[in-house]
C-alpha cells in the first residue's frame, strides 16, 4: 500500500502540488487523471524518489520513503518498475540490452536465461524479432512497448506508468490498454498510471483519482467516478471546453 499524505511541492514560486492526499491499494490499477501540466509527472516522480517533496509523506507499506537513506530506499526501488513518458530507453544498448538490463544488474542469471526472459516479455508486449534493433530505429509505439517490457521484466510488485498511450495511434493505444489489463490481472500487480486518455482510463482502471489545482479532488472506484457529480470531474471525463475548468 502506498499512502501519499499532504504532499507539497513548488518550483521557485510555482506551486505544483498543494497538499496531495491519496491512498493506493495493492493489487489494483489506479489511474490518476488530470490536465496537461497539473503535475501528474511531478507526483509520480515523488513516488520513485526522483523528486523530494517540500513537505508531506509518502508511505510504502507504512514506511516513509522521503526519510529513508539511500541503501534502504534502493531496496524499495527494486520492488518498483517504471515506464517513463518518453520511454527513456538507453540508446547505447539494443532492445534486448534494455529489457534485460535490470536482470543483468540485479540477478545472477546467465546471459542465455536473460535472453529467454527478454524474448518472453517482448512477446507479451507484442514485439517479435526486435531484440537486436537499436532504440533509435524503433517507432514511438514500439519504444513505449519496449519500455513497458523493461518496466515489468523483474516482475515488480508495483508498476508506474507515465502516460502509457500518449502519442500512439488509437489502435496501438487500445492494444497497450489490453496488455496492461492482462499483465496486471495475471500477476495481481499494483499498477499506477497517469494519463489524460479517458478511453484508457475506462479500460484499465479499478480506481480513479483526479488531480486538479495541486490536490486530489475526487478518488474512488471507476464505476462511482462515472456517476460522480463533481462538475470539474464531469467536464474532464466529457472532454468539454465548457465548465468550471479554465482553459488558458
Amino acid at each position, binding site marked *: 500500500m502506498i499512502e501519499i499524505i499532504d504532499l507539497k511541492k513548488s518550483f521557485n514560486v510555482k506551486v505544483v502540488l498543494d497538499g496531495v492526499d491519496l491512498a493506493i491499494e495493492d493489487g489494483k490499477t489506479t489511474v490518476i487523471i488530470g490536465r496537461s501540466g497539473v503535475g501528474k509527472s511531478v507526483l509520480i516522480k515523488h513516488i520513485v524518489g*526522483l523528486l523530494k517533496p517540500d513537505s508531506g509523506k509518502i508511505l510504502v507499506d507504512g514506511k516513509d520513503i522521503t526519510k529513508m537513506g*539511500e541503501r534502504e530506499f534502493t531496496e524499495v*526501488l527494486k520492488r518498483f518498475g517504471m515506464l*517513463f*513518458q518518453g520511454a*527513456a*530507453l*538507453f*540508446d547505447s544498448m539494443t532492445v534486448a540490452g534494455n529489457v534485460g538490463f535490470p536482470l543483468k544488474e540485479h540477478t545472477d542469471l546467465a546471459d542465455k536465461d536473460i535472453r529467454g526472459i527478454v524474448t518472453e516479455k517482448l512477446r507479451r508486449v507484442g514485439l517479435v524479432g526486435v531484440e537486436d534493433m537499436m532504440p533509435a530505429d524503433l517507432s514511438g509505439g514500439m519504444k513505449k512497448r519496449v519500455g513497458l517490457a523493461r518496466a515489468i521484466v523483474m516482475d515488480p510488485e508495483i508498476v508506474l506508468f507515465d502516460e502509457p498511450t500518449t502519442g500512439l495511434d488509437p489502435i496501438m493505444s487500445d492494444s497497450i490498454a489490453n496488455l496492461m489489463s492482462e499483465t496486471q490481472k495475471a500477476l495481481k500487480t499494483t499498477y499506477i498510471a497517469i494519463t489524460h486518455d479517458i478511453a484508457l482510463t475506462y479500460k484499465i482502471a479499478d480506481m480513479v483519482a483526479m488531480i486538479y489545482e495541486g490536490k486530489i479532488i475526487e478518488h474512488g472506484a471507476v464505476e462511482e467516478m462515472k456517476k460522480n457529480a463533481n462538475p470539474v470531474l464531469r467536464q474532464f471525463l466529457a472532454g468539454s471546453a465548457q465548465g468550471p475548468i479554465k482553459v488558458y
Partner: protein
Amino acid sequence: MRELFERLGRMAVTAVTVTGNMFLILAQAVYFIFIPPYKLRNIVKQMEFVGVKSLFVVILTGSFTGMVLAMQSFNALKRFGAESLVGPTVALSMARELGPVLTALMVTGRAGSAMATELGTMRVTEQIDALYTMAINPVKYLITPRIVAGLSMLPILTVITDFVGVIGGYFVGVTLLNINPGVYIGRTVDFVNVDDIMYGVTKSFFFGLIITLVASYQGFYTTGGAEGVGRAATNAVVVGCVLILVSDYILTSIMF
C-alpha cells in the same frame, strides 16, 4: 549599486554551488571505485573511448609539436652556438610541459565534449532517471568509469605524445637541420632523465581527472533540452581547458 552587489552575490552563490556539487560528485565517484560490483565493462569501454580513440589526434599533435620545437629551438640555440642541445630542449619541453598539456587539451576537445553530450542527452531524455528507478546508482554506473578512464589513459597518452614528439624532433633535427644523429641522441640521453617524464606524467593524472570530472558534471546536470546539451558540451570544453591551464600553472609552481 545594490543591483551590482546582488549580481555579484548570485554569482558567488552559483560558483560555490557548482564547486560544491563537483566535489560531491567527485567524492561519490571515487568512493564507488572501491565498492564492488565493479562495472568492468563500462570501465573498459570508457578507456577505449578516452584512450584508443584519442591516439590518432594525439600522435598527430605530438609529432608536429616536436618538429616545430626542433626548428624553433635550433633557431634560438644557434645564436649561442649550442645547436647540439636541440635534442634535450625538445625532449624536456615535451616531457615537462607540452606533452601533458597538449594531450589534455586535445582529449578535452575530443572526449570531453562527447562525454558531456552523451550524459546530457541521457539526462534530458530521462535515461539517468530510468537508471535511478532501476535501483542503479547513476554516479557509479556512469561517472566512476569515466573518471577511472581519465586517470588511467591520460598518463599513457602523455607518454605517447612525448615519444612521438621526440621522434618528430629527431627527424627534423637530423634530416633537415643536419645535426649529427649521435650527438642528438647522446645529448638527449645526457640531459633528460626519468624524473622529467614522471613530472609530466604526474601532471597528466590531474588533467585526466579534470577532463572527465568537468565533462561528467556538465553532462550529468544538464537542463533545458537539446539547447542545454549543446551548452553542456561547450562548457565541458571551455571550463575543462581553462582549468587545465590554471592547474598546470599551480602544479608547475608546486613541483618547480
